[in-house]
């Protein structure tokens, strides 16, 4: 499914997710959009936080005229729903779709949405995902060229993030095997996992690889591109920054997925002040440490490189 869509693509898609709410996904999405646009790169922000859409308010837009609601309910074209922001080269598709429950989005609508996202006339499309690991959220995450996860340094956020990444990976494995014609095999084995002595996703993947060498080859090839860009937000100490390195390590050693730890963003009261002022953060608070962290991580995502750790290399 995704393969066919990806061939007709215009710009580079970044999706920002991570499981728990309140970690700063929307805030950071707004900042990444601002950064790219200010580099003169035409950028579209898409608010896919279904039920909790508020990306527009980070740009001081009160009640947008258009939103994804028109796409789902009136069959509007996505490109007709673009709302301009006060920043050159940056527009927005708002997600004020309180009338739509995520569950009611049909499969065909989802495909159409993905196809139109890919066709948006922009160099970068940044998708702000809502909290949670709903299938629609995971599928949207998986169409991205760069899958970005935002995390705050606290236990529940870490737990939810593991859950989110595991589910994304599981979904990817299923999609991949489906594309190769092994649609039922994963579900079949998973449903009978106790008979196979399988307790979790990792063991399922290992089992499949071990048992069916051709599946192993397919998964190795396809999952080689499964790479997560990790951002740690709201850090208050050097210890918090190092936490990101630990999480990277655990995810790599446990799930075998590649993690690029691209940045840590300092906690700063200027953020909520800016949100209250309903002004793009990077326009007014460019000199804060927080803004500098965001600029650095934006560059890191662009160039696919990692954060410089305190005290030298990671």
């Amino acid at each position, binding site marked *: 499914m995704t393969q066919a869509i990806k061939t007709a693509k215009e710009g580079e898609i970044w999706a920002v997710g991570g499981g728990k709410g309140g970690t700063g996904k929307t805030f950071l999405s707004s900042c990444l959009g601002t950064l790219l646009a200010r580099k003169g790169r035409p950028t579209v922000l898409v608010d896919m936080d279904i039920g909790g859409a508020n990306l527009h308010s980070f740009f001081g837009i009160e009640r947008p005229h258009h939103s994804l609601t028109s796409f789902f309910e009136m069959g509007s074209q996505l490109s007709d729903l673009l709302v301009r922001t006060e920043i050159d080269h940056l527009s927005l598709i708002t997600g004020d779709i309180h009338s739509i429950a995520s569950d009611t989005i049909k499969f065909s609508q989802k495909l159409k949405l993905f196809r139109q996202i890919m066709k948006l006339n922009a160099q970068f499309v940044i998708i702000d995902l809502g909290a949670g690991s709903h299938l629609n959220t995971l599928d949207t995450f998986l169409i991205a060229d760069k899958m970005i996860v935002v995390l705050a340094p606290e*236990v529940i956020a*870490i*737990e939810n993030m*593991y859950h989110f990444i595991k589910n994304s990976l599981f979904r990817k494995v299923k999609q991949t095997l489906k594309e190769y014609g092994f649609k039922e095999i994963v579900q079949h084995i998973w449903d009978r996992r106790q008979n196979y002595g399988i*307790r*979790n996703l*990792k063991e399922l993947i290992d089992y499949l690889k071990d048992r069916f060498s051709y599946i192993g080859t397919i998964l190795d090839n396809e999952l080689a591109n499964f790479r997560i860009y990790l951002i740690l937000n709201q850090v208050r100490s050097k210890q918090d920054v*190092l*936490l990101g*390195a*630990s*999480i*990277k*390590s*655990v995810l*790599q*050693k*446990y799930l075998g997925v590649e993690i690029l730890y691209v940045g840590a963003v300092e906690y700063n009261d200027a953020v909520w002040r800016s949100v209250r002022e309903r002004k793009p953060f990077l326009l007014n608070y460019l000199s804060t440490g927080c803004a500098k962290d965001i600029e650095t991580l934006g560059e890191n995502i662009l160039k696919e490189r990692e954060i410089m750790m305190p*005290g*030298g*290399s*990671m």
Partner: protein
Amino acid sequence: MSRAHLAKYFHVLEIPTEATLRDVQNAYLRLKRLYSDHSIVLAPLEEEFTDKKRLKVLEEIEEAYHKLLAGIHAEPPKAAALFPEESPGVPVEKNLENMAYSGVALRKVRERLGIDLNEIAKELKLRLDLLRAVEDERFEALPEEAYLKGHLKNYARYLGLNVDRVLEDYLGRYVAWKAKKPGLKR
């Protein structure tokens, strides 16, 4: 000079193949700490990332560390020289197997790891002259045994050494000196 045959070990320690001995040391200490206790990073995966798996990861980290110490240490100083495929290089600790951890031995290990004394002082929040006194075995300048023990422990851990052995060897020398010391006995 190629480090290709060490790539696997660099990967285990999650550092690039051009890493210095110092990077290897840091990565080793960091990962060892991470997988040795139940931190908030591991806790949510406790059921899935079993103790068995965790211990295996620790073993791999240990192996990678020793292979890298040996491999990097055996590298000739000049890049032009050939790097032997199966280098018989010896890890820092192995090399010192039969040597007690005296002040001189500790300094040798530290220097070989390319760690500056200033850095340890800063990281461990210890006085530089105290660390110098430890390495010079100027016992009279050292604090009471209980304090010394604490400092030594941190110092040894920082260098990635076997803490118990360092304490045993070094404190053994310290106690011997104290017994011989003329004057006040407390």
